[in-house]
């Protein structure tokens, strides 16, 4: 639980202070300790803070929300297959 709280603080802090790939790595790490809700919120925060429509991203401002949502879904299904995670998580 303590690790989850610490990682969450680092994750949200990294949105303001570190390059995007650090945030993504911390988000992936956090996905294995939490249900993934805070990671999606982090994606929303990233998009709200820095987004500008870019042609490569289909001129939308949802990139990190979508990426973190997909990662959270993937983590959910992966964790279901792993014995070390209880089904309730």
């Amino acid at each position, binding site marked *: 639980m303590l690790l989850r709280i610490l990682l969450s603080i680092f994750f949200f802090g990294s949105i*303001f*202070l*570190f*390059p*995007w790939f650090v945030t993504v790595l911390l988000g992936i790490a956090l996905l294995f300790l939490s*249900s*993934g*809700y805070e990671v*999606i*919120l982090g*994606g*929303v*925060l*990233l*998009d*709200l*803070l*820095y*987004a*500008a429509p*870019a*042609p*490569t*991203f289909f001129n939308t*401002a*949802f*990139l*990190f*929300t*979508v990426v973190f*949502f997909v990662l*959270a*879904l993937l983590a*959910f299904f992966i964790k279901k297959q792993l014995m070390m995670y209880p089904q309730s998580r």
Partner: protein
Amino acid sequence: MFPWGLLLVGLIGSAVVGANTLSSGMISGALLSTGKPLWRAEASISSSLSNLALHFRFKQGLINENRELKERIEELELSRVTSEALREENSSLLRLLNRTDNRRQIVGSVLTRPSRTLYDTFIVDVGLAEGLQSGAHVFAEGGVAIGTIGDVYEDTAIVSLYSTPGRVTDVYVGEDAIAVEATGRGGGDFEIRLPRGVEIVEGSPIVFSTLGGSGVLGVVEKVINAPADPFQTIFFSSPVNVQGLRMVMIDL
């Protein structure tokens, strides 16, 4: 069982981002104002740390570096004099054509680096209060064009770089000032496709606009000619390191 909770949070998050876009960044403005003191503190701490690191350097290394820097200053001073003469000549030519350069600009301090996000944007500490408008051109030192203002908030604004992946910018290239479209590749890098017959030399400048003194957009880094391809690909980069920018000039 499907994670309906995650889906709900994802949908609510997307709705918030969508509502923010439709309301011209109402939530973003509030968030950026919250982050401003944090970014200021970060800049101050990193500056103090880099000053601290200076205390642990060897004397001989500093002497050598000092000598090299003095030589470099002399070179740059020569280049500055030439550039000043050219600028004056350019101004007088513009006056002859009744195209006086009477732009008003404001200095903005850079709060975040473009590396903080994949969108290739950064945040400046000036906004609506200073009369900033969306779409205004942003320049680095020396008149190097780097981007335009995206969303503007009360005391902050988002700068979208010309090098944003996929963004297309009209530029002039080569001695004949051929008008072409440059496509952004992110981080201050661009790409141009031109027929192979056009001769482009590595190191030549890519100009953002020939009249009006808008400045240089980049310098040709590499020209790739594949035998099977009738086109050549020109890669060029901004002469300024967009990751290290501290101040920018913004058109009003």
